[in-house]
């Protein structure tokens, strides 16, 4: 006899996604507020700052966009820097693909748009841990919409209220602090540390480069250094295990 309670219904999946996403908003909302303030301080208009949050919908890339645009960097370099910052989403997209590929195109477009770091983090966990359900994509809809609303609202509040906050509060420092909160715990392997240190060194050494291209150079340098370290470690392990396999 088929069990009618075997699958959570769409609404239940949706609200589960919302509930899983809510705690992460403690980190998202201050970032959104600060971005709203920073956007205006960088010389973007209110409308540009607010729409950037829905058009790019990626905090780090929005910060890069605002800062580079304020510095009068050529549009191509601004676009290229935003592109590099957002490349990581390809990984999320790849790991979500097996759960979402069967959906109609309009669903894949909507969920693709909503696929951010924070929504990915909670929904991939739900997909992996199961239980499998034909409605499980509603979980990503719930987490994605929650983040979207929090991000737009906090940007808006930052834009409206930002001018009343005195500069001496150094609230813009919350942005590098947010990045520290993400980077520090994610450095686990030696290759991560190498990527981190090389990116840090290049970001300082390459400051004199024109058009603030140090962002692209330091990011690409860090990625390459981390990848090489991991590749060399793998090759060495393989060499060692081949050697051991030959031993009696």
């Amino acid at each position: 006899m088929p069990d009618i309670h075997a699958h959570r219904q769409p609404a239940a999946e949706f609200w589960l996604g919302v509930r899983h996403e809510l705690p992460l908003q403690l980190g998202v909302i201050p970032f959104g507020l600060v971005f709203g303030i920073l956007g205006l301080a960088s010389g973007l208009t209110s409308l540009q700052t607010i729409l950037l949050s829905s058009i790019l919908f990626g905090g780090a890339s929005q910060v890069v966009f605002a800062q580079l645009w304020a510095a009068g960097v050529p549009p191509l370099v601004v676009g290229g820097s935003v592109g590099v910052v957002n490349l990581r989403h390809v990984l999320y997209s790849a790991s979500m693909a097996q759960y979402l590929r069967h959906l109609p195109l309009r669903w894949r477009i909507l969920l693709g748009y909503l696929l951010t770091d924070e929504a990915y983090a909670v929904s991939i966990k739900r997909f992996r841990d199961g239980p499998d359900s034909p409605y499980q994509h509603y979980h990503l809809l719930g987490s994605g919409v929650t983040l979207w609303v929090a991000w737009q609202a906090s940007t808006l509040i930052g834009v409206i209220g930002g001018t009343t906050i005195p500069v001496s509060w150094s609230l813009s420092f919350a942005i590098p602090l947010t990045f520290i909160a993400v980077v520090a715990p994610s450095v686990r392997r030696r290759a991560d540390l190498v990527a981190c240190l090389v990116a840090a060194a290049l970001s300082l050494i390459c400051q004199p480069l024109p058009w603030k291209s140090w962002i692209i150079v330091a990011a690409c340098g860090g990625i390459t250094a981390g990848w090489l370290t991991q590749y060399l470690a793998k090759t060495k392990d393989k060499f060692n295990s081949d050697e051991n396999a030959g031993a009696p």
Partner: protein
Amino acid sequence: MIWLVMILGGIFTFATRFVMLSGWVARRLPRWLIDALAFVPIAVLTAILVPAVLIDPATQQIIVIGNKRIVAAVVATIIALLTRNVIATISSGLATLWFVQWCM
């Protein structure tokens, strides 16, 4: 012009999120690409945050001695490693910065 760059940036960003769901590309990314992409967040965020801490906005010079932001960043890093909590990291960093500014 700014609108054009915003919209093109938005289309590219959407493409990075949608590409593997599209069904228009190979089902699997090559292993080396997955390995390389895994380093994107660490490299990108470090590249943005280090100059934001070390470089003085007024003079555009690297400042180490007497730089209050370094103290705050070090405290925030320790808190981040201990708690793995975003809000604790941000608030401890800001509180340290305010405290050091108040002391000096």
